[in-house]
């Protein structure tokens, strides 16, 4: 003949306080809601942006290396040995190597009436015909430099250069002024994400550069495609292959490293924001504890009545503990919805695919429930150990 509370009655009994004080219940879950929303949105946004970065890195390929002279003053490309393109191409693991050379002091203008200083930073580069395939680039219009075209005053414009000069196609064909000479535009490139320096250049053939501008055959920047799995090894072989006399002067970089760095940076900020979310959750838990302590004080008479009606200490503790767990769970659920909304809105705005890691949603809800349980533990025990006579005295 023991006292018994049916499992089906636990939730209705535990929600009495919430149903009668709705405003307070709503406010008390706000902290947890914010905490979980922050957690879910931080993890969701990190995942969504990383997915986008990873997709870009995959599309670009991680096997492109750029060889340059590392000694030159910053921003100015210095010459490499004339034979370096050939020696690099012979290195084990290299699939293709294409040399380019910045032609110092030379700029590209729309016509010969534009002032010499108003070149918009557009450079002129001597390039070999294999450059397009090495960079895996595409043409927006026209053709790339071929063997014969390299001999004549023909230029291919990088994407930004073409935009700047107001040249969209090769119909006409348009002419550009290279400071000393007219060149015919035979092609326009699409943007090259891994070689932005090509985007704002006009490319001309090496023989034409030698003939018109005295190019001496020393490349300043060589693009190298490697066998993907050997990229790391090749990277260490290239300085000696490029300049056996002075390998330390050679700098080899991998342009996708910048994207990798962004991935790492995103991870670092995620940690910081997760910490802040955890603090918000903790504050939310303290808020719940606070509200529950007040509820126990206010509902002493109800506690006394329930004890008089046959509730055990365990029943009273369960009632208040379940109430605070419900507060935590409600805060967690709202937080997941809110955080999910933020992720979807920002991903839509940034054109990313919205991704919410299931672990973030499950973990957020679990953390909210744990916070509710911890916050409710002390008030629940206080309610349970309140002597019934003392509780009823306040009636």
């Amino acid at each position, binding site marked *: *003949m*023991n*006292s*018994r*509370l*049916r499992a*089906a*009655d636990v939730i*209705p*009994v535990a929600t*009495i306080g919430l*149903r*009668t004080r709705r405003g307070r219940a709503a406010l008390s879950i706000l902290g947890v809601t914010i905490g979980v929303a922050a957690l879910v949105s931080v993890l969701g946004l990190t995942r969504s942006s990383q997915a986008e970065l990873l997709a870009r890195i995959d599309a670009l390929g991680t096997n492109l290396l750029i060889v340059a002279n590392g000694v030159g003053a910053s921003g100015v490309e210095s010459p490499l040995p004339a034979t370096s393109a050939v020696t690099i191409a012979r290195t084990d693991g290299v699939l293709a190597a294409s040399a380019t050379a910045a032609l110092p002091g030379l700029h590209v203008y729309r016509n010969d009436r534009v002032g010499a200083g108003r070149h918009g930073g557009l450079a002129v580069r001597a390039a070999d015909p294999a450059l397009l395939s090495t960079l895996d680039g595409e043409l927006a219009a026209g053709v790339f430099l071929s063997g014969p075209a390299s001999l004549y005053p023909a230029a291919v414009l990088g994407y930004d250069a073409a935009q700047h000069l107001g040249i969209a196609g090769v119909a006409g064909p348009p002419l550009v002024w290279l400071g000393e000479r007219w060149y015919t535009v035979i092609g326009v490139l699409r943007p090259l994400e891994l070689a932005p320096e090509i985007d704002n250049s006009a490319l001309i053939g090496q023989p034409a550069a030698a003939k018109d501008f005295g190019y001496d055959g020393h490349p300043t920047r060589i693009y190298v495609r490697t066998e993907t799995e050997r990229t790391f090894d090749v990277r260490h072989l290239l300085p000696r292959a490029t300049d056996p006399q002075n390998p330390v002067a050679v700098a080899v970089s991998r342009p996708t490293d910048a994207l990798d760095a962004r991935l790492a940076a995103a991870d670092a900020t995620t940690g910081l924001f997760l910490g802040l979310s955890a603090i918000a959750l903790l504050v939310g838990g303290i808020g719940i504890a606070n509200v529950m302590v007040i509820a126990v004080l206010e509902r002493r*008479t*109800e506690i*006394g*009545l*329930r*004890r*008089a*009606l*046959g*509730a*055990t*200490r*365990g*029943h009273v503790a369960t009632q208040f503990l379940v109430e605070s767990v419900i507060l935590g769970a409600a805060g967690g659920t709202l937080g997941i919805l809110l955080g999910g909304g933020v992720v979807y809105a920002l991903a839509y705005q940034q054109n990313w695919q919205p991704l919410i890691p299931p672990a973030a949603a499950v973990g957020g809800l679990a953390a909210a429930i744990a916070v509710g349980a911890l916050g409710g533990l002390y008030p629940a025990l206080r309610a349970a150990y309140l*002597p*019934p*006579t003392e509780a*009823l005295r306040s*009636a």
Partner: protein
Amino acid sequence: MNPPVLELRGVRKVYPGTPPVEPVAGISLTVHSGELVAVLGPSGSGKTTLLNLAAGLDRPTSGSVLIAGRPIERLSDRALSGLRAHRLGVVFQQFVLLDHLSAVENVATGLLYRGVPAHARLVKASAALDRVGLGGRTKHLASKLSGGERQRVAIARALVGAPDVVLADEPTGNLDTATGAALLALLQDLNRDGTTIVVITHDRTVAAAAPRRIELRDGRLVHDHRSPL
């Protein structure tokens, strides 16, 4: 004579302090099934402490309280709670209803800790409200009821599980004379139907309605009087 439903054997209750307070100073008392007993005494005579002990809401410092033959001082919280749920009904002077619940839901809480399913609770609660004359007010919120009605709901809640004994602490204390008299008539009526009732009161009119009157003074039983039947 019917078996005892409630028995106090030399019960003392002492609250520590300087000086210690002893509201119940050695009371022995037996209540048998079917009785209507009034416990009479001035303020401070130990009536409410006696009720708390008899209702299993407090444990004696010494002596023994037996509810349904079981000494409560040796019971676990769970077992004592079980006795309260199954054997006892309590009516408080302040009614102590849950204001946001309807009359019938309040009465149904009297069966909550017996593990009775929700629907069965409501059916029995409805019948109990009928019994106290509130059959037409079942759906009303407790907060919308008058004082007399609230006390009837409280009595229905104490009755709903057909306990061995109903303990009522100043049940008419918060009611006007007419309402109090009607309530008293209801208690007498319930007793005639077989419910054992112990009424704590300081009102001699209420006490006069009971066939057995026990008088307390300074924590001691000074008079135990039975009216001739």
